[in-house]
């Protein structure tokens, strides 16, 4: 196998919460010393319950949070300690698809503006091609160009999730971190989005770091998974192997909990 496209080594993050009393400093170890590699065109699942540290990991990998220790490498380049401006150049390569919620898109920007932003920032297309490019993106995620003038609030949850996806793929990234992309969607819509994600992966040759608590979703998307518990990776391996023959106690409990 070739070199990993994303490599996380001994990554830790602790939050210090200052209490009201003088000595009241609580340290929360959200992520403890985790390591994993993701290879090109792979789809790596990070699963766990709420509070297991999987979302913190996603934010760390994207440098939306500052890690406490450890290293993050993409394409062999250490991005752990890049400054804000330095990191901004790498945002083109690694993108995130957030969980759709009321305000994950600026509610006062039209769909067109939202999609144009990444194009402008990273100079993806010339100014004259913005229109064409946004149309193309909209079509790719199953929306129509006439949606451009709409505001996120005028669209359904599923459509908003599609816009979030379109924004992520606009800069032509190679890695996309999907943070619970279907968790807040209705059952009848979840399938659409998951299918879209899988299609895009094929079409654009993407690599996913897929974060979810839903083991059913994992089954469809991921080839390798890591199970997180209490900030640590407790089990990692091929998806089928882990889910069908779980070794750790926690993984067993998790698999049993599927209804």
């Amino acid at each position, binding site marked *: 196998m070739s070199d990993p496209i994303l490599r996380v080594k001994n990554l830790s993050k602790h939050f210090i919460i200052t209490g009201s009393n003088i000595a009241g400093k609580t340290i929360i170890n959200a992520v403890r010393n985790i390591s994993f590699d993701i290879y090109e065109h792979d789809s790596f699942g990070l699963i766990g319950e709420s509070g297991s540290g999987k979302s913190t990991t996603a934010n760390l990998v994207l440098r939306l949070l500052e890690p406490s220790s450890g290293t993050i490498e993409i394409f062999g380049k250490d991005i752990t300690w890049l400054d804000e401006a330095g990191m901004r*150049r790498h945002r083109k390569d690694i993108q995130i698809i*957030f969980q759709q919620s009321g305000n994950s898109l600026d509610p*006062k920007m*039209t769909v067109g503006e939202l999609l144009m932003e*990444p194009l402008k920032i990273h100079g993806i297309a010339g100014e004259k091609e913005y229109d064409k490019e946004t149309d193309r993106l909209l079509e790719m995620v199953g929306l129509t160009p006439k949606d451009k003038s709409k505001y996120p609030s005028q669209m359904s949850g599923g459509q908003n999730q599609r816009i979030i996806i379109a924004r992520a793929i606009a800069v032509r990234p190679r890695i996309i971190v999907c943070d619970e992309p279907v968790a807040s969607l209705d059952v009848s819509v979840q399938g659409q989005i998951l299918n879209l994600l899988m299609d895009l992966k094929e079409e654009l040759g993407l690599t996913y770091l897929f974060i979810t608590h839903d083991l059913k979703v994992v089954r469809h998307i991921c080839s390798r998974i890591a199970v997180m518990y209490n900030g640590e990776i407790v089990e990692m391996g091929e998806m089928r192997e882990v889910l069908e023959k779980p070794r750790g106690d926690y993984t067993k409990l998790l698999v049993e909990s599927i209804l």
Partner: protein
Amino acid sequence: MKRMNMPLIMGTLIIVLLLAVILFPEAFTSKSPYNMQHLIFSREGGSLEVEVAPHPPSAQFILGSDDMGRDIYSFIIYGTGLTILLGVLTAIGRFLIAVPMAISAGFGNGTSKTTIRQFNILFSAIPALLISVIILKLDYLAGLDKRASILAFVTVLSLVGWPKLGALLMERVDFINKQPFIRSEVAIGKGRIKIAVENVFPHLAPEMVVLFFMEIARALSMIMQLGIFSVFVGFLKIIKDTEGGVSFYDISFEPEWAGMLSTAKNFLSTAPWAVIFPAIAFFISVLGFNLFGEGLRNILQRKDSLFIPRVRKLLSFDIKYIWSSFSRKGKAFSVIFVVSIIFSLSFFILAGNGKKLDITDVSLPEAHTAVIGTDEAYAAARLISTKMEELELTPMDSESFIHTYTIPTVSLILEQKFVLGNQDKYSAGTDYTILDSPDGSFSGGIYDATRMDLFSMEDFSMMEDYFVMIDKAYYNDAAISYFMNKIEGSVSVRGFILVARSGEMHPNIYCDRIAPTTRVMISGETAKDIKDMEKPEINISISAKTLGETGLNVIGFCKGMDELLNEEVIMIGLPFNYSDDGEKQILGFGIRLMEEICKKDKNRRSLMFVFMDGTDYSKLSGIHALEADYPYSASKTKVFINMLDLNQAGFDNLIFSNLQAPFTRQYAWSLGRQLKSNLEQAGIGITEAKSIFFGDQYYFTDDPTYNTMFMDRGIATIIIAADDEGNGKNSIEHLGRILVDTINDNIY
């Protein structure tokens, strides 16, 4: 059924009403807020009833009057502008401090965050109201004039009020920053400043608009509270000398609501209307701004509001490009620049425009001189009177603008020569002055009688055919005149040389032609020269022209717009004689000044322009005639602006005095103060006219004509004259603009 936005409708109604009142106060009341009617007389059943202010609400005073007999209703109407302006300026001031602080704090600037927090703690420990009262009660701040007082007020209220606003905005910025979409903007690689401009600020904008109106309401209620503590703009402390001692009043002559509360609170039990109605005015406007803010909130924060996208578009179009093209230093500079522009703009709005009064296009007579009693003077007077007609001024008597008066016979010196020995170095006015002489050339020796006791002399034969030199220092004028008559009666002399008393030398273009021989006054230095000569010889030649016997005062009356105030008159006195081109410009200046002041239909009071003849020679000055036969009620003449000695088109300093416009003459006093401070602000230096405190009044020693109007007629006088020192860096055009602005702006 669609839901009506009641707060917005109510708020808009109130604000529109306030605006209408501010812009067209005269549409709401015909009464002047400055008019005082302390006593009301009425005849009832044959007996005279006298009612003393404060008057209760009645047909005459809709909402009653205050203790000075001013109409509460019109005071409220005319006070709206200033009161609301204060509120708005304070809100702007607070925003100017709070917004940058809040945004930088919201983006994690520790210093700003701490500053906002600490100030909030400070002002929750010590009420902001208390601090403002203490600061604004300082003698220095309390004694400022209107504009400076507004500035001080707004500054103090902004400083004590911004932390609360800052904290509110900071929280809001914090809240916006925590929204998930900000994180997604970071994730696509947007820079911090861009996020601030394109995402945070637009989302903050509706809140800011709403808070702005709420802030005006907050500022207004603060101003109201300050009013109760006798702190208000346009603060005047009137000291009234009564028999029991000195009493102090806090009285506002500026219509403004807080000031009304302050004055009226002492009469709460006897004249509740004087407190209640201003308080209601405050209440309504506070309510109005609050409702308007609330209503805007309903609109702007509606889901489908397009306000935020519009703000964003506005910002991304301009600022982004301009901003990114600046260097770091340039950015700091531009912030300072913008802030100072805003400040100076608001200042200029208050200060009026700074343009000069252009006098170049005034058409002036062709003659090079126009001296009293000459045809040229008559031509100039005609010119002025034509101008007055054009400006639709009215003459004081129905006949003519030109009033004549008789002057003593004098002659205008056309040519003069003074040669001592063979020295021709002496100049008229400083070394010698011919007082009285027949035409011709006279020469002869000089008999020095300065050491003689002329009173006890009987035999004057040794003076035969000599010029007799007498030292004026030893005798008074009457004695000298007696000697000269006596000497001439006994022997024939060539003439008299009078050694001037210290400081008595003056230039003179006039002389008498009554005496049979020459009388010339010389300076001490010239006298010394004579004494140093062994056999002094002198030659004096003179030709003169006797002037007409009539002086001309041109008087025009410009009626004020305010029916209740146009009985009151501002008199402006100007010279119109000239003997050189510089002085000729003064005439132009006078005409343009008249045009400027009268053409603006802004004058509430009437104006009386008096162009006076003979102002360069006290004996001939038209002011005496004017005083003796004053064409208007002296008690209704509120002030006389005396510019009769304004004899230079350029000057460094002005001789200025408002000493004869004391406290007790309220209007004149305020105008004088305003004028003085405006002159100082424009960089025109001021020299006080020489005065002595005589009796209980100031008396000017330099020029007796200065005193005439005040001493003899009781008309408060402000003196403006040119100081002949310096090289003329300021011009009358400067002065003219200041005069126009001050007279038009002064609304007392």
